């Protein structure tokens, strides 16, 4: 006899003793409890990411004000960067919300997994954008800061007077580069770990499901 047929024969023997019988009240109590599904976790982590990057940009702005940089906020470059940053934030937030709304537990298994992965992909792109934007902003703004920040300017003057101007620039650029690399690496590692752990099972199930699809 086919193994599964034997199993089916046994499976079909509906027996009340086989499973615990939950009462009406047991089930009622369950619907009042909170879910701990991965979708909820992705949602929480994504919101935290949005909050983190908004806080980060506000913090940078606040810091910028304290510096002795004359009118940095009214420079065209700064305005352009800010407009890009907020438009992209609005776009990603909208896209994330729409993706999240399409996650439906009554879809077929494959569609449900795809929609969850799509939501995660949007957040991944958002994080990627922020990291790239952070690097580009620093690179673009650095020359401006060097020529407008009084503290930096006096350091450059000193270095020029001592004949170490090349050394100073090289040190500054290398220093900024190093800090950027470390920050980006730490953030990437963090996202990789959080999503890696959270979505490991889903990814492998999705691959398994799609293995034979052409």
């Amino acid at each position, binding site marked *: 006899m086919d193994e599964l047929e*034997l199993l089916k024969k046994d499976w079909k023997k509906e027996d009340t003793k086989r499973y615990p019988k939950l*009462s009406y009240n047991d089930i009622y109590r369950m619907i009042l409890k909170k879910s701990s*599904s*991965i979708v909820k976790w992705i949602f929480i982590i994504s919101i935290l990411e949005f909050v983190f990057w908004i806080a980060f940009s506000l913090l940078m702005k606040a810091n910028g004000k304290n510096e002795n940089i004359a009118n940095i906020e009214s420079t065209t470059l700064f305005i352009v960067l800010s407009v890009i940053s907020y438009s992209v934030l609005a776009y990603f937030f909208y896209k994330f919300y729409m993706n999240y709304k399409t996650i439906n537990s009554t879809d*077929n298994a494959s569609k449900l997994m795809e929609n969850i992965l799509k939501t995660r992909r949007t957040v991944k792109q958002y994080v990627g954008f922020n990291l790239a934007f952070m690097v580009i902003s620093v690179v673009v703004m650095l020359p401006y800061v060097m020529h407008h920040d009084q503290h930096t300017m006096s350091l450059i003057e000193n270095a020029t007077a001592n004949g170490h101007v090349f050394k100073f620039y090289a040190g500054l650029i290398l220093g900024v580069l190093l800090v950027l690399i470390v920050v980006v690496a730490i953030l990437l590692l963090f996202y990789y770990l959080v999503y890696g752990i959270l979505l490991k099972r889903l990814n492998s199930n999705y691959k398994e*499901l799609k293995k034979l699809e052409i």
Partner: protein
Amino acid sequence: MNKELEHSFVEQLEKHQNIVHKVCRLYTNNQDAHNDLFQEITIQLWRAFPKFRGDAKFSTWMYRVGLNTAITLYRKSKRRVSTQDFDAVQFRIKADEYDDTEEEQLKLLYKAVHQLNDIEKALVFLYLEDKNYKEISETMGISEVNARVKMNRVKNKLRTILNP
């Protein structure tokens, strides 16, 4: 209105709860995990219930949400230290109606099914619930041909596990 909805849902789930128990049985190894998964499936069913139009049977609708929760949505709880693992026999009825060989064979079969991956378990579950390939392909979101191929592979895999 909400109370009515709650009542209607709880009443139907109480009646069809064995479907959820069966999903939990395939995807968990101990009572605590079984209860956790049951709880999460119940929550997901309840959330989806307002959209349940009644054009499908409640039980059919439950298969989909139940399996989706077990395969995709459920985040295994790490809080609990797993208690004693289920023995396949624990599920069995104390019965004289089985002969020993069959009993032993079933025990090994349940054990083998537990070694399958999440997707393979879902296929086995739908097969055991007498779903045809069309229904299996619709529930899993794969083609019917693929469902057949995968099912054959599962059968072969079970054979290999049982007769190494």
